[in-house]
């Protein structure tokens, strides 16, 4: 699905990623853990195509129409339309922009690009409400401004709602667990898990292995100093929780 090769990247002149390699196949869920400053957020921004973050070396190959394509020159909106989704760690507030209208615009934009039929407001409303039930979201959400006055948990739930609606092929969940209490985490993880299939893949970025009890990954990678220093299975996350990161550093 996605193959990241020898990825070097910088922001504001600071080299953050230094030769990151990662291959994620269809149907797989990978987790990345790592200490602060290891490059987790930079990786998210690079995959999403943030204009301030620059790839200085390496490539990101992503399957588009059965062909591998290097996406590093694609605009963020093109990536989104090709089925890449970022669930942000800090979703931004956009006053006056209705959350559900925005999501419908986004949904239709992606449908349009992929040659699927766009949905009219009434059908979309039904579709949205059904998905909101999965995430146990309040009906009032539909009338609220995008992320404005949302609690930390509501913002994260809103990210996952968007993910479920847009049904991406490849999703990055950037610290989706931060700001969630245990009950919310269970609900959100349940929503994410319903999306898992042999056709799509996910990259879960987290500080804590707690989330991985709910979204169980196939592989766990440790990011440190801008590259992956250790890969393993679920038990690697448990080991990190137990012992910290220092024992992994050479």
């Amino acid at each position, binding site marked *: 699905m996605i193959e990241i090769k020898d990825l070097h990247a910088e922001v504001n002149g600071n080299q953050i990623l230094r030769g990151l390699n990662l291959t994620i196949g269809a149907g797989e869920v990978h987790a990345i853990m790592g200490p602060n400053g290891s490059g987790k957020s930079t990786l998210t921004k690079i995959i999403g195509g943030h204009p301030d973050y620059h790839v200085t070396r390496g490539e990101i190959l992503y399957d588009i129409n059965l062909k591998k394509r290097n996406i590093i020159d694609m605009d963020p909106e093109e990536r989104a339309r090709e089925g890449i989704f970022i669930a942000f760690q800090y979703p931004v507030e956009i006053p006056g922009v209705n959350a559900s209208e925005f999501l419908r*615009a986004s949904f239709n934009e992606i449908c349009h690009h992929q040659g699927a039929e766009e949905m009219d407001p009434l059908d979309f409303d039904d579709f949205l409400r059904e998905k909101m039930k999965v995430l146990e979201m309040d009906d009032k959400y539909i009338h609220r401004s995008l992320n404005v006055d949302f609690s930390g948990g509501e913002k994260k739930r809103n990210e996952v709602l968007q993910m479920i609606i847009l049904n991406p092929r490849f999703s990055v969940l950037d610290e989706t667990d931060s700001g969630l209490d245990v009950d919310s985490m269970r609900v959100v993880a349940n929503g994410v898990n319903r999306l898992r299939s042999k056709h799509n893949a996910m990259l879960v970025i987290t500080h804590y292995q707690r989330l991985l009890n709910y979204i169980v990954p196939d592989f766990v990678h440790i990011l440190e100093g801008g590259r992956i220093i250790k890969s393993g299975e679920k038990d690697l996350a448990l080991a990190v929780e137990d012992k910290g990161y220092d024992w992994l550093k050479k």
Partner: protein
Amino acid sequence: MKNHPSQKDHLTNREYKYGFYTDIEMDTIPRGLNESIVSLISEKKNEPGWMTDWRLKSFRYWQKLKEPHWANFHYDPIDYQNLIYYTAPKRKKDQPMGCADQVDLEIMETFDKLGIPLSDQSRLSGIAVDAVFDSVSVKTTHQEELARVGIIFCSMSEAVRNHPELIKKYLGSIVPYRDNFYAALNSAVFSDGSFCYIPKGVKSPLELSTYFRINAAETGQFERTLIVADDDSYVSYLEGCTAPMRDENQLHAAVVELVTHDRAQIKYSTVQNWYAGDQDGKGGIYNFVTKRGKCLGQGSKISWTQVEVGSAITWKYPSCILQGDNSIGEFYSVALTNHKMKADTGTKMIHVGKNTRSRIISKGISTDQSSNSYRGLVKVLPSADNARNFSQCDSMLVGNECSANTFPYIETENTTATTEHEATTSRINAEQLFYLRSRGLDIEAAIALIIDGFCKEVFNELPMEFAVEAVRLLETRLENSVG
């Protein structure tokens, strides 16, 4: 990732699409301003003596005044002797001036191009239009239909001739010629405009509107609008304006007066899209406008909604005098400045009667090297028991070279009054754009969404078709400004 060009480069600046010029034969008076020019304008319009006298009184008073320069921008003093104060399309010989029945083909075509068809076959449905071309009203549509319910809707010239009793009673009653420099100037030389009277108990079946078109070079446009809503009546009034693109600045100094009697309501909406000059600040309209409404009757209401996207300079404070008990004044404004535009705009709410209420919602968007100021006064007089005001002034900055200012003045002379003021300043930031783009929206759609959201409270107040137009105008103006 490729070296991203700034988002600015993505976007091509669409031209000001109303910037064309209509080449027709004009009847123009000599340059300059003196008593004989004032008399000549009055004569051109076949005005009665009382009107000429009023103009001359205004002119003499204006001569004693100094051009005001207290607004938050600089402009070079205007040479009033170098302007032309009256330019009208030449009529065919057999038609007297001011006869508005047969509009020349070229002018019809001009308004067609502006999206304001005037012919009886293609005129807009649901909206009556008074079309003002340079110094004169060239056509007023739907007059018979409105007359059937007793509404008078005509050009100011016609009103002076046909309804002198109403004009004498109301003209200058809200904005006296002594009010300010530009009001005095306007009172002396105003050439046309719209008059509208809604009789008791009548709810206007149509929206009424005036479309102002400046065409001739070096001519100032000075028009007056007067709307009187009698007891229990209602009217929604729209105003639109455009001008050709020129390197020279042109002066537009209008006066608008509104009066509401008991329980009457006037909803006044403007989309101001005068030519704003080029990106170096060359050319554009100087817009010095005095707009004021008086809620004379109890329980009456005046609501101003404005979308200001044009003019090199905007100096404009649509205001309400809340005289009748329980009357309501509202001001909803979106002002967008780009390039080197300068806007100093806001409102005054003067609470006189008991239980009067006012609401101010102002949204300023500044980009490029423009400057955008909100200036507002909420004044509660001793008589205004339980007066209430709420003001919200939000500014959005796009880029780093523009400026936004808020000058709210609150003067309360009655302890039972409550006033609230909120203000925010924000930016369209790269993170917001990235967020929206990462959901599949392109930059244009993302900006449109953010701006639409920012202005929503104001757009909600506009009549539907105006709201659509306003959103489109903002998008066009902003396209190359977000970097």
